[in-house]
C-alpha cells in the first residue's frame, strides 16, 4: 500500500463550522464555553457590584477577628477570645466527629437490620421492615428534632440524681449517668501521663493517645504476621493452626502493659454543683444528632445490605453447601467477598449523605461547621458570601475524598467478565 488518491485538502469555509463534523463539535464547545463563561462572569460582576454597593467587598480578613462566642463542644482548645478561623476549625472537627460516629453506628445497625430483615423469623423480619419504612419515609430533620425531644423529655435532669430522695441513679456502679443534658461516662486518666505534644503551637495532641495508637498498630501488625504464618502452614500441611488466642494476646497484652505503665485509671463523673463533673460528657445535641443520623441512614444501609445479600443468588450458598463447606465458611469465603462488592459502593455514598445531612446540626444546636462558620460567625460578621463559600469548599473536599475512595474500590474489585 504505497499511495492512495487522498482527498484534496478542502479550503476552509465558514459554513464548515456548522456543517462539517470535524469543526462542528469545536463550534459547539466554544459556544457552550462562551455561554457558560458569560453566565458566570455576569453573575460575578453582579455580585461584585452588589457587594460594592453594600460596602462589603469580598475579603477573608474577618476570619482573623475575635469570635467572642463560646462553643460547648470542642475537640481542640477554644475560648471566646480565639479567632473566627479557629471557631470554624472547631466546627469542622465537630462535623467530622459526628460524621465518623454516625457512619460507624449506622453501619453496625444497618448491617444488623439488613440481615435480620432476611431472617426466617417472621416477626423479626416484619419488625425490621416496619423500622426501615418508618425511618426512610420521614424527613431526617424531623427525626433529629424527635430524638432531641425524646432525650430531653424522657431522661432525668442532673438534679434528679441529687439528695436523699433522688429519683434517678447512675448506672454500672455509679460510673455512667444518663441525663437529659447528655451522657456522662468514665474517662481514661493517666497518673504517669506523657503530657501533650503541641503541633505548630495550634493544636495539642495527647502523647498518651499517640503511644496507645502506636502500640495498637504494632500489635495489629504482629497479629497479621501470625495470620500470614497460619496461612502458610495451612498451605503446606492443609491444617490451619488455631491462632485466635495468640492473635488476641499480641494485641491486647502490650496495650494492657502500656496502660498499667501509664498509670491508667478511670475518672468517674460525679455530681458537683449544677452538673456532673469529670468523665467524658457527650452532650444531648451530639447524641440526638448522632442517633438520628444513624437510625435514618441505617434504614438505607439495611436495604443496601439486604439487596447485596439477595444479589448473591441462593445458588451460591447451595453450591458451597454441597461442597461440604460449613455455614460460617460459606459466609466468609463465598457470600461476603461477593456481597461486599455490591454493598460497598452504595454504602460509601450513604456515608457521604450522612456527612452532608450532619449539616442539620443547627436544628439541635450542635456546633458543627454550619453552626459555627455558617451560623454564629456569619450572623455576627455579616459575611455571607465568604462563609457560604468556605462551607461549600469544605463539603466538596469531603465528597471528593470519599468519591475518590469509592472509585478506587470500584476499580479494584470489579468482577472479571468476558
Amino acid at each position, binding site marked *: 500500500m504505497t499511495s492512495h488518491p487522498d482527498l484534496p485538502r478542502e479550503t476552509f469555509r465558514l459554513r464548515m463550522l456548522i456543517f462539517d463534523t470535524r469543526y462542528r463539535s469545536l463550534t459547539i464547545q466554544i459556544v457552550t464555553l462562551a455561554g457558560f463563561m458569560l453566565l458566570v462572569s455576569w453573575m460575578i460582576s453582579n455580585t461584585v457590584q452588589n457587594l460594592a454597593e453594600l460596602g462589603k467587598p469580598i475579603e477573608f480578613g474577618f476570619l482573623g477577628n475575635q469570635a467572642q462566642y463560646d462553643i460547648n463542644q470542642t475537640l481542640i482548645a477554644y475560648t471566646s477570645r480565639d479567632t473566627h478561623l479557629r471557631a470554624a476549625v472547631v466546627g469542622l472537627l465537630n462535623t467530622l466527629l459526628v460524621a465518623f460516629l454516625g457512619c460507624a453506628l449506622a453501619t453496625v445497625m444497618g448491617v444488623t437490620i439488613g440481615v435480620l430483615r432476611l431472617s426466617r423469623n417472621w416477626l423479626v423480619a416484619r419488625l425490621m421492615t416496619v423500622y426501615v419504612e418508618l425511618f426512610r419515609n420521614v424527613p431526617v430533620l424531623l427525626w433529629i428534632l424527635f430524638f432531641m425531644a425524646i432525650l430531653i423529655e424522657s431522661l432525668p435532669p442532673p438534679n434528679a440524681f441529687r439528695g436523699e430522695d433522688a429519683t434517678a441513679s447512675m448506672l454500672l456502679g455509679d460510673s455512667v449517668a444518663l441525663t437529659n443534658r447528655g451522657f456522662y461516662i468514665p474517662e481514661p486518666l493517666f497518673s504517669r501521663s506523657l503530657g501533650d505534644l503541641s503541633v505548630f503551637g495550634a493544636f495539642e495532641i495527647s502523647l498518651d493517645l499517640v503511644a496507645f495508637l502506636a502500640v495498637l498498630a504494632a500489635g495489629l501488625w504482629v497479629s497479621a504476621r501470625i495470620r500470614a504464618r497460619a496461612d502458610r502452614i495451612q498451605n503446606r500441611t*492443609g*491444617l490451619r493452626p488455631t491462632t485466635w488466642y495468640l492473635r488476641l494476646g499480641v494485641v491486647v497484652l502490650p496495650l494492657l502493659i502500656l496502660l498499667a505503665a501509664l498509670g491508667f485509671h478511670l475518672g468517674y463523673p460525679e455530681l458537683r454543683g449544677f452538673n456532673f463533673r469529670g468523665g467524658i460528657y457527650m452532650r444531648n445535641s451530639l447524641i440526638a444528632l448522632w442517633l438520628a443520623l444513624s437510625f435514618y441512614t441505617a434504614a438505607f444501609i439495611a436495604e443496601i445490605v439486604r439487596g447485596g445479600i439477595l444479589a448473591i443468588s441462593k445458588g451460591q450458598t447451595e453450591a458451597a453447601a454441597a461442597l461440604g*463447606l460449613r455455614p460460617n465458611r460459606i459466609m466468609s469465603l463465598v457470600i461476603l467477598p*461477593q456481597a461486599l462488592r455490591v454493598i460497598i459502593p452504595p454504602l460509601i455514598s450513604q456515608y457521604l449523605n450522612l456527612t452532608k445531612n450532619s449539616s442539620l446540626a443547627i436544628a439541635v444546636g450542635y456546633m458543627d461547621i454550619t453552626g459555627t462558620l455558617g451560623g454564629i460567625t456569619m450572623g455576627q460578621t455579616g459575611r455571607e458570601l465568604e462563609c457560604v463559600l468556605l462551607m461549600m469548599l469544605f463539603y466538596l473536599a469531603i465528597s471528593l475524598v470519599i468519591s475518590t475512595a469509592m472509585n478506587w474500590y470500584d476499580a479494584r474489585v470489579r468482577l*472479571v467478565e468476558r
Partner: protein
Amino acid sequence: MSDPVIDPSRPAVSEEVAIDILGMNKWYGAFHVLRDINLTIYKGERIVVCGPSGSGKSTLIRCINRLEDHQAGRIVVEGIELTSDLKHIDQVRSEVGMVFQQFNLFPHLTILENCTLAPIWVRKVPRREAVDIAMSYLEKVRIPEQANKYPGQLSGGQQQRVAIARALCMRPNIMLFDEPTSALDPEMIKEVLDTMIALAEEGMTMICVTHEMGFARQVANRVIFMDQGQIVEQNAPEAFFNAPRSDRTRLFLSQILGH
C-alpha cells in the same frame, strides 16, 4: 426409533448399597412434593431421573445431600443416615458431589481457586496438593489452560465442565447432576455430556436428572420416571424406552422424543 446405543464397556454394578431411601416423604408447607419414595442405589450405578416439570426430580436429589430436609422416612447415604445431625450432614456432603443447572461457580474466584476451595477448607488438603488434584481434574474435563481465568470469562459449556471438575476435586463417591445441560447451547451440550460419559465409564455412582435421552441410553443402568412426586416407573434404559409399561411414561416419552 433406532436401537438403543449400549456401550459395551459399561461397567458392572456392585452389590454394595450406595444410597438407600426408605418410605421418604417431603412437604413444602402443605404441598406434598415427594410421596413415599423407596429407592436403593448400588455402588457404580448410573441412574437417570426424568419426568415432567414440577414432578419433584430436583427435590429428590437435593434431599440426598440434604440441601432440603425430608419430613418422613429415611435416607441412608454410604451407610450414614441423614438426620438433622450436623456431623452426618457434613460427612454425607463430602461424599456426594453435586452439579447444578446454573453452574453456580464462584465468580470472584479463579477456576483453579473454585476447584481448590473445598479440598483446602473441608478436606484440609495442603494447597499444593489441592492444586495438583484440581489441575488433574481440569485436564480431565479438558480445560487446564483456563485455570487462571475467572468464570465470567468462560463459555457456558466450559463453566459447566469446571463445575463438574470442582465437584470431583472433593473425590466424591457419588455424583448428583441436576439438569446439567439445560442452560446450554446445543454445541456446548455435547462437550458436557462427553465429560459425563467419561466419568460414567470410570464407574462413578451417578444420579442424573436430565432429558437427554441419548445420554440415558448410552450410560444409564436404570431410568427412573417420576410424576407428581412419586416414582412411577423404573427400568433398564432399553426396556424403559422400548417398552414403557405405564401410560404416563408412554405419554411423557412421546412428548420428549416427539421432536
